[in-house]
């Protein structure tokens, strides 16, 4: 389970070139590689609006971010012009000297003055840029916090149906990866977009004030940039897609071969595994280098376009200066503007992509938030009745899918203290009963009552607290043994935990562990055995002290001695409680007050051992085949 471990780091360093100031020589904006085209949101506008809704509480801060971003950019934009003025002054003084004007010198006082102003502007620009990033850090992370919290709270209200229908990985990827994508975008792309737009407008304005003609020439190179971006994006897309597909195939092949390593070895199929791997690997290589290459061309081509603009500006500017229509410093400033000009365009192309995939991620998160929840909770009846554990199914029908009913008109009456054994072949749908009793799923028709009360009249929490559940796939979490047992009841004392462990026959083995009750179970809880895990879950049920029990008898992977302990612990637990046992042991089944025989998800027979044997149905056959098992030698031989 390591697929989710590497989250993306929100707000990673290197937030791309900021606003204003000088950029790279020929105007290449950061690692200008095309990223993998992301998924698109189905409902672009709606999702965007909803996402923006999350930013509402930070209106003030966001206004400040906008303001500082704008100020920082504007200050950055003004400075090349001032720098150009300084150059012009130098040039004029120099020309005067060259031309031998008497007493000619460079006006250093003026240049000094400009420099002082510039320093002020630069400091202000940087300071504002810092404030903007700083504020955005808080806004972005807090928004993401809210989103994550909402999703988690939502998960608590979703019916089990939702979780059964999808893999853990899928749910986790929505809570973790998708939310991270949003966080990254908020942190970087949002402000980048703002500064890009302001830069673009500001630069055009500044360029127009210098020379409309040169501005026109530069803008004429714009369509060229767009053509380049589009051509490359559309050419690289199939390769990226192929790459993604091949990578997915390769990864699942690796996963399968490694998890099945024992089988691969046992059947001597290493060679064919390697062959298949190499085939996919080569396909991946073909796609990968082409995708990389084509998207890698983007940068040099954009640079070429920008250089063409640069050359045009130099030539036209030079000619204009010789004619005296503009000043040399203006050409210098113009060159700098020209460099800043192409950058926001490349950036916007990238940002558009980022926004697409962010909205797709947001949409997936919102999908979770919009899932239908469990029906509303009725008013609590805590303490209004003392529980005996009389469970009745009255004309119950149910099916996971409406068109495939599993249970039709089922009636059972379980008196307090009775033991009900549920038997049937594996996969017969025994968990269905658990799902219904605990109201993990809603029944179709009829009703289930406990002590005469419809379970739908109880809040789910209270209903579930009536039940104790010990299942074969034990669930323990990464924490101490004490904490794991105490999970059964909030606020249990150490003394109570100890008593529960003793009652569950778990005390002995816990004490043999080096840290006793403080032993920390690791992430897979693999530092204790399967049987010991079951003892702990029994202890947990003891602590919860429920009126009704749902038990799952151990079949495999538990050694016989531990199984004996589990058996003892279970019978202790069952004393005086109404119990539903998913039974595998004949003795349990025979001693049960009621046997429910399940097959293919529905209850096909019910009654006690004698009745069912007499009926000569499925149960009788099942029971006899068990005896056939013991007497195999005679029968089969």
């Amino acid at each position, binding site marked *: 389970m390591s697929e989710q471990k590497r989250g993306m780091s929100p707000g990673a360093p290197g937030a791309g070139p900021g606003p204003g100031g000088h*950029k790279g020589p020929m105007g290449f904006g950061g690692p200008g590689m095309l990223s993998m085209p992301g998924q698109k949101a189905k409902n672009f506008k709606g999702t965007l609006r909803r996402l923006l809704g999350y930013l509402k509480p930070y209106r003030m801060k966001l206004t400040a971010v906008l303001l500082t971003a704008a100020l920082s950019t504007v200050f950055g934009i003004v400075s090349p012009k001032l720098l150009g003025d300084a150059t012009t002054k130098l040039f004029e003084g120099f020309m005067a000297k060259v031309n031998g004007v008497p007493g000619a010198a460079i006006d250093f006082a003026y240049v000094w003055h400009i420099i002082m102003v510039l320093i002020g502007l630069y400091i202000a620009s940087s300071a504002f840029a810092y404030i903007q990033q700083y504020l955005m*850090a808080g806004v972005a992370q807090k928004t993401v*916090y809210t989103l994550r919290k909402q999703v988690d709270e939502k998960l608590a209200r979703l019916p089990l149906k939702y979780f059964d229908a999808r893999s853990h990985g899928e749910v986790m990827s929505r809570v973790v990866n998708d939310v991270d994508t949003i966080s990254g975008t908020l942190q970087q792309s949002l402000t980048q977009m703002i500064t890009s737009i302001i830069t673009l407008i500001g630069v055009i304005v500044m360029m127009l004030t210098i020379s409309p003609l040169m501005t026109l020439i530069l803008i004429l190179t714009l369509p060229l940039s767009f053509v380049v971006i589009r051509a490359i994006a559309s050419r690289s897309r199939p390769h990226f897609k192929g790459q993604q597909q091949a990578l997915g195939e390769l990864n699942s092949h690796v996963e399968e071969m490694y998890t099945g390593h024992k089988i691969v070895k046992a059947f001597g199929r290493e060679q064919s595994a390697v062959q298949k791997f190499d085939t996919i690997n080569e396909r991946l290589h073909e796609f990968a280098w082409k995708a990389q290459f084509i998207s890698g061309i983007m940068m040099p081509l954009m640079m070429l376009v920008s250089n063409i603009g*640069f050359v045009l500006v130099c030539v036209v500017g030079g000619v204009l200066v010789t004619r005296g229509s503009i000043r040399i410093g203006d050409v210098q400033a113009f060159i700098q503007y020209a460099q800043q000009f192409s950058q926001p365009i490349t950036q916007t192309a990238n940002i558009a992509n980022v926004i697409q995939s962010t909205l797709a991620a947001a949409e997936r998160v919102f999908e979770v938030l919009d899932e239908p929840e469990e029906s509303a909770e009725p008013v609590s009846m805590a303490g209004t009745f003392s529980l005996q554990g009389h469970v009745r199914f009255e004309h119950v029908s149910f099916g996971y899918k409406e068109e495939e009913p599993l249970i039709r008109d089922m009636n059972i009456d379980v008196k307090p203290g009775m033991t009900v054994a549920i038997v049937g*072949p594996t996969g017969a749908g025994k968990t269905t009963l658990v799902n219904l009793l605990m109201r993990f799923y809603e029944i179709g028709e009829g009703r289930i009552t406990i002590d005469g009360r419809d379970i739908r009249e109880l809040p789910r929490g209270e209903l579930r607290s009536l039940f104790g559940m010990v299942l074969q796939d034990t669930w323990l979490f990464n924490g101490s043994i004490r904490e794991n047992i105490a999970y059964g009841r909030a606020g249990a004392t150490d003394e109570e935990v100890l008593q529960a462990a003793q009652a569950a026959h778990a005390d002995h083995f816990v004490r043999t562990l080096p840290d006793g009750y403080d032993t920390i179970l690791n992430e897979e809880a693999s530092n204790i055995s399967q049987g010991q895990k079951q003892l702990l879950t029994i202890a947990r049920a003891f602590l919860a002290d429920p009126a009704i029990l749902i038990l799952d008898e151990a079949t495999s992977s538990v050694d016989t001695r531990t199984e004996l302990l589990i*058996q003892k612990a279970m019978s202790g637990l069952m004393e005086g409680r109404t119990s539903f046992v998913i039974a595998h042991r004949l003795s349990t089944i025979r001693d049960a007050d009621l046997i429910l025989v399940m097959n293919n998800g529905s209850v096909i027979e019910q009654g006690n051992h004698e009745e069912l044997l007499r009926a000569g149905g499925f149960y009788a056959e099942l029971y006899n085949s068990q005896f056939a098992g013991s007497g195999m030698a005679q029968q089969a031989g």
Partner: protein
Amino acid sequence: MRTLMRYLRPYRSMIIWTMVFVLLQSIANLYLPTLMSDIVNEGVVKENTPYILKIGGLMLLVSAVGAALSVGASYLASRTASGFGMRLRSSVFSHVERFSLQEFDKLGTASLITRTTNDITQLQQVLIMMLRMMVMAPMMCIGGIIMAVSKDAKLSLVIIAVIPVLALAIYLIGSKGIPYFKAMQTKIDKLNLVLREYLTGIRVVRAFNRTDHERERFDAANEDLTATSIKAAQIMAAIMPVMMLLMNVTSIAIIWFGGLRISEGHIQVGDLMAFLQYAMQILFSLMMASMMFNMLPRASASAARIREVLQTEPVIVDRDSATAAAHGPASVVFDQVSFRYPGAEKSALSGISFEALPGQVTAIIGGTGSGKTTLVSLIPRFYDVESGSVRIGGVDVRELSQEALRSRIGFVPQKALLFSGTIADNIRYGKEDATDEELCHAAEIAQASEFIAGMKDGFDSVIAQGGMNVSGGQKQRLSIARALIRKPDVYVFDDSFSALDYKTDARLRAALKDETQAATVIIVAQRVSTVMDADQIIVLEEGGVAGIGTHAELMETCGVYREIVTSQQTEEEIA
């Protein structure tokens, strides 16, 4: 990185050409400002329009050449990085395929998967960035310095003064920020853990009504992560503004000192303008390099993990003298076998001796941790014994080639594992060239025909990855069919009936009886009913043999066995 470097060797000439291209391209880019300064110095000052046009044309040519070189570099870099990734991946995978279970235990399956997939992809990405940027950054930096010094050595002092300041600023901010980024990663892991636990235990959480408790846990992890993320992002917020400020201040300084130099007649205005461009190139390349350095620690962590895989040598290898033994009935003999897992204090098995004969069923029973699975793992040589020997058909398993040895064994593991593909593919995994009749026969014996026939596409029904769409019992039956189709000399069933209900279990064993008549059958089991009618039962306890014999004999002589029996069956059934 050294071990991995050899995967770059086939691309040596490509890498050299990439560097040459990038160098030439950098020079082309640096040449542009020089030409621009010519426009100013010669064209503008002397008001020579044809000259301006001529140089302009030259600049376009230089730009085009630069772009062409860059495209070439991109081509070479893409092929190199992707080819490197492919070779490395292929060699890691085939290396891992040679591993015995011991190396898998040591490195962990999940970790091996990550190393083969994510880590290599990571390296490949860094490599391409390195080829494109890391090469370009120093080239541009050096080129820029050369050009700057050649224009005006004294003015270059400004640049020399700024570089250490810039480096220091990057270092200071980076060293403050990086610990937060590291902490962030562990906190993301923690959040994932909490969530994963919640998802896997959702029934328990709800049954115990502890949803609020889980929510608090998640919220705590969430808050913790958020606080750290904010801190990290706030520190990193300083990087860009500081860099921008430094670059801008540099350009002012150049204008000021350059102005002084101009007034003293050392340089011309055009030179100053070119100089400004050089300075920006140099500083920008430094910033680019600093971004690259951010990627290096991650890449080197990946590289270290991959290297560990490649440097792990499988402990089980075929001997040079390994022979391919003839097929035919073969006994399995354990002769004073002891074994311990690497690094374990206690032996998992000690002094095990027994003989399993062809045509007989040998059952192994015992508690968890008594060494049953370990014992049968020694037969196909998943592990090597510490002392003693395991012999098959009279030959020590270590004398046989692994392939020859395993081709004689039909192994059914405890955890039924299927591969994605059709049901037929999965059964044929045991014998690639099996006919349809063989396929049906194997399925029939394994009691799988019925449910296979019930599926929409029969044998062509597709099994999802991990066999998610078939039940545990069905998986086990398919995994038994897979072993049966080989018609091996030795069958090993490692607790392979556990997910079957009594009825299927009984039918299956009856059918197996005929099928495996001539073969040596070894069955590990938990249920006494499964082992009762075996020809010999071996009772294991704490890695040693507690008793060997038939059911009746053991009931007389072996206390451990009696205890197991009583715990599982009522008096009536034993009798």
